[in-house]
């Protein structure tokens, strides 16, 4: 019972945050309400006995992604007065598409699932076992993700850096060609 209420509260919080992010005019407000959504999702993970994933979610999204978004907003002068027209032309079509998507998904979920799935015992997902799995059977994806993150880091820095066209670099370009 308590669990059910908790779930409803958390779900309401999550959805509310998402909706706020969708409709608010001020970009920073959008970002902040986005973090509310992230936090709600993390709580949902915790309710699903996925401690590690939940904390990782908080750490990564609230600790890193949200900050990143906020920084990006400030760097692109988006933080000032709210935009005069926050929605792109023909937003109605987008809204319709989104609604249709939700309808389709919800329909599929409700139709295909019995209301009550037999819930087994909480699977053993200790950090220990996760680490073991990552290091044994998921080692290749782990490596790839590591490489991906490195590449993304460097790439993001390079993309966001102002281009410096010194004669030296020019010469290098010429060499590459």
């Amino acid at each position, binding site marked *: 019972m308590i669990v059910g209420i908790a*779930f409803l509260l958390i779900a309401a919080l999550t*959805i509310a945050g*998402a909706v706020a*992010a*969708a409709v608010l005019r001020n*970009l920073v407000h*959008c970002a902040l309400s*986005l973090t509310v*959504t*992230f936090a709600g*999702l993390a709580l*949902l*993970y915790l309710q*699903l006995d*996925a401690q590690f*994933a939940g904390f990782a*979610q908080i750490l*990564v*999204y609230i600790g*890193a992604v949200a900050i*990143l*978004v906020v920084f*990006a907003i400030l*760097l*692109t002068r988006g933080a000032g007065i709210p*935009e005069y*027209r*926050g*929605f*792109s*032309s023909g937003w109605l*079509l*987008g*809204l319709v*598409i*989104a*609604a249709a*998507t*939700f309808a389709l*998904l*919800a329909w599929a*979920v*409700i139709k295909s*699932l019995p*209301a009550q*799935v037999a*819930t*087994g*015992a*909480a*699977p053993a997902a200790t950090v220990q*076992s996760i680490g073991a799995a990552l290091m044994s059977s998921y080692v290749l*994806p782990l490596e790839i*993700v590591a490489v*991906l993150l490195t*590449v*993304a*880091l460097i790439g*993001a*820095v390079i993309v966001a850096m102002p281009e410096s066209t010194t004669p030296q670099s020019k010469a290098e370009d010429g060499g590459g060609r």
Partner: protein
Amino acid sequence: MTPLAAFLIVAALVFAIGLAISLTRRNAILVLIGIELMLNAANLNLIAFWRFGPHAGHSDGLTGMMFAIFSIAVAAAEAAVGLGLVIAYHRHSKTTDLDAMTRMKG
């Protein structure tokens, strides 16, 4: 215990909202936010299915969790690169307005 369907519905709703954001808002950063939301919805689905899935309790019953963790990592990378791109574009032509990004007009 909350039924699986509830989580799935929440995930679907979050996904739809994310889609709506990225389809209707004009600011590129907000579009990225929407994409993040969609990824998160997918993660929620993964974890929900992991929790309720038949493998739960086995030693190798970690697949869904693993997927979620990896997709969190990938989402972080995606956010970094996407925002970097937005900033770079903003430096070139002082806007993050998608409607104004018509350079590619063929």
